[in-house]
């Protein structure tokens, strides 16, 4: 009987291995999906307006606010029976000193959702929960009683919002321009002092400066007056609100961002409010030390910085990879360079930040300041962190990724294709430029995608070279040269850290952390999708690339 006859082989090991691989993949996918869902649910639920409850406690006090959390109280020696407590966002920080408070459920005598409760979103001091009592202009009472006040409030508030917009337009437009001109004038005067021309010319230029100064000052005076008048008008009307315990608070209508009555809103109205809030979140500027308002400047700063970084890293990375693969002769030097490049990818990102500070900011930026902006000194122009230096630092950080991916793309171009071009009489440069690089374009784009994803998420190096908590202006605006590379900028990654852990009101802003994180993930995903679509179009056009 053959030794092989009775052997029976089962592929148990093989089948288990397949299951293990599938299981590992499923686990990874679940983790990634779970992360996204966690962020999404926590972030998106932040904007859904809850009902406002009125709790009458057993000791007679009243608590008015939104229920945000419910916790189990484990039994202790003083309280053998377990219970629950709820956390209420009571707002009214100017009255109570804090936004949240815990209430033991056993202390609650009654609970209701009164329809006439109004929630005010304010520019300062956070939310206010109470009832509308009166609407006033100075001493004149415009409306009294909740229903009357509510109906009169609507159109009045609309008008106030328009006035807000007008004030902002005035500040950012004409007043901003006058300020910039005044600053330029000051710099011109300093330049004059530094250059020290002959007396006749100096006097002439000084006279010019003085007359221009006078004109600008006059303009500024006039605009200031206009602004002051508008600000006064803004505060003309005020709303008298009554809080849960009967305290009255006078709030200027111009200080109110929005007023809603959550308990009277149906699901449709709440959904509409939700979408409005989502839109405001991505389009508005932040308020109250980044704990309220929108995050538009952070989105703008992140996207602009990633684009600048891409423009910087593409030529550096691609040209370096081209040299390594096409022009350098294989040998010790090339191998060493490759090892060095790969190791560069492992350097901690904060080290890049320090390098960027020393090299870009102090050395190059300082030199630029001395050469081109001496009149501004000692205030640095380019000699301090800014979006340009931040982008270049991140470009350095991601250059190894681009080099490696580009080399892969170049290696994937078959040798016979290069030979075919050379055999037609093309020079090596023409072959590289006209045939090899277009064929390697999908690989290059892969490298760019990886680089952009990495850069969008880096926070540590940026903190040192130009990212700030709150930037006074965007790096792009309507004033020449329109793109201001020396300005500091805001960034979503840093915003998450700042809002979640550095803000004065951590409890209130924790959901904001999730919302911002979700937005960061979405921004990166959108940028990647755009690049992937472009790459796929290139692939079908140049069908044949393996990378």
């Amino acid at each position, binding site marked *: 009987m053959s030794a092989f006859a009775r052997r029976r082989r089962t592929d148990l090991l093989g089948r288990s291995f397949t299951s293990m691989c599938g299981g590992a993949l499923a686990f990874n996918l679940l983790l990634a999906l779970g992360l996204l869902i966690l962020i999404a649910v926590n972030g998106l639920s932040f904007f859904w307006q809850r009902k406002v409850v009125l709790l009458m406690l057993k000791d007679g006090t009243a608590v008015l606010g939104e229920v945000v959390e419910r916790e189990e109280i484990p039994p202790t020696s003083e309280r053998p029976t377990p219970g629950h407590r709820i956390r209420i966002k009571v707002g009214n920080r100017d009255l109570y000193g804090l936004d949240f408070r815990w209430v033991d459920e056993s202390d609650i005598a009654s609970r209701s959702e009164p329809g006439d409760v109004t929630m005010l979103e304010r520019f300062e001091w956070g939310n206010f929960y109470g009832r509308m009592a009166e609407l006033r202009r100075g001493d004149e009472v415009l409306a009294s009683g909740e229903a009357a006040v509510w109906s009169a409030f609507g159109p009045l508030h609309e008008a106030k919002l328009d006035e807000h917009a007008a004030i902002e337009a005035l500040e950012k437009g004409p007043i901003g321009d006058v300020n910039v001109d005044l600053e330029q004038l000051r710099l011109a005067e300093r330049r004059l002092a530094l250059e020290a021309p002959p007396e006749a010319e100096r006097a002439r230029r000084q006279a010019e400066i003085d007359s221009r100064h006078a004109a600008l000052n006059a303009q500024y005076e006039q605009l200031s007056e206009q602004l002051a008048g508008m600000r006064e008008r803004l505060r003309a009307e005020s709303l008298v609100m009554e809080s849960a315990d009967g305290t009255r608070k006078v709030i200027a209508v111009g200080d109110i961002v929005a007023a809603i009555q959550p308990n009277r809103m149906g699901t449709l109205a709440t959904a509409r409010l939700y979408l409005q809030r989502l839109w405001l979140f991505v389009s508005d500027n932040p308020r109250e030390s980044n704990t309220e308002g929108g995050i538009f400047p952070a989105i703008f700063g992140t996207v602009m910085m990633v684009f600048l970084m891409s423009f910087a890293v593409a030529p550096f990375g691609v040209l370096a990879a081209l040299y390594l693969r096409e022009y350098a002769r294989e040998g010790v030097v090339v191998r060493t360079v490759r090892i060095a490049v790969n190791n560069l990818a492992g350097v901690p990102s904060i080290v890049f930040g320090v390098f960027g500070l020393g090299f870009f900011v102090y050395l190059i930026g300082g030199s630029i300041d001395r050469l081109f902006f001496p009149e501004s000194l000692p205030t640095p122009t380019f000699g301090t962190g800014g979006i340009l230096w931040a982008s270049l630092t991140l470009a350095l950080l991601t250059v190894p990724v681009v080099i490696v991916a580009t080399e892969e793309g170049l290696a994937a171009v078959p040798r016979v294709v290069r030979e075919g071009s050379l055999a037609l009489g093309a020079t090596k440069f023409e072959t590289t430029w*006209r045939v090899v690089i277009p064929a390697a374009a999908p690989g290059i784009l892969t490298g760019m995608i990886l680089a952009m994803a990495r850069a969008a998420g880096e926070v540590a190096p940026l903190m040192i070279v130009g990212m700030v908590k709150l930037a006074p202006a965007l790096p792009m605006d309507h004033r020449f040269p329109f793109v201001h590379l020396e300005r500091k900028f805001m960034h979503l990654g840093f915003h998450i850290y700042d809002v979640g852990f550095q803000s004065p009101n951590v409890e209130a802003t924790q959901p904001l952390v999730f919302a911002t994180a979700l937005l960061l993930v979405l921004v990166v995903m959108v940028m990647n999708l755009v690049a992937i679509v472009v790459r796929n179009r290139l692939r079908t056009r140049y069908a044949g690339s393996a990378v």
Partner: protein
Amino acid sequence: MEAMNVVPPLLRAGAPLAEGEPTVAERPADAAATAPRTVFEVDALSLWYGGTRALNHVSLTIPEKRVTAFIGPSGCGKSTLLRCFNRLNDLVDNVRVEGDLRFEGASIYDPALDVNLLRRRVGMVFQKSNPFPKSIFENVAYGCRIHGINRKDELEAIVERSLRGAALWGEVKDRLRDSALGMSGGQQQRLCIARAIAVEPEVLLLDEPCSALDPVATAKVEDLIHELKSRYTTVIVTHNMQQAARVSDYTAFMYLGELIEAGATDQIFTAPAKRETEDYITGRFG
């Protein structure tokens, strides 16, 4: 037919060209009037890849407007020799050359020679078709753009002429903007031929052009070679002896880097002078 029996005295193995030896053009008038002019002269060419010798004192001539075939077993150096004609071996590291190779009388290893110009005049089609990852039009127009022809009307005329010359126009005239990589293997190879002839070369080097093609496509390419013969000097490297017999006017048999025998195809295949040639042709080895 008389020309076929005349073996031009320079198609001779082993011996270097001696001074004073009459060239084909200088032969006395009683030689066949149709004896072709020499385009390439290989003069005791030896080539090393690093330490390995690939060509050993090869001397032969390539006649104008005829098809010359290089045959021999794998590794005999025929592709290496072919790639010397347009100096494509320059691309390989550690290549060393001794001897000379003359194109139209001038040495191609002269440092003053413009290699790119040489490569325009001596075109090449490779074993595996290698169209660029571009459109069909751009593939054919590539050579023209390189050499400075960029006007749309000129390019269109040249592309049409080249595609017609490669017997491909009818099949692709409606899809010139499509990717060249979407064509079949035979079409791609004819595209490469069209691309090569678009720059108006004088010589066409074909390195086993049909080895990756099916018999139908092979037949088409062979017909094409026959048509192109009247316009271009053709040198073809082939594994396929029947193809060499069908297509070529002159044949050179190489073995282990040496030129064993060269002569008119008829003569090589019916009455070879050397034993090795006869053994190879009758299939005893290789």
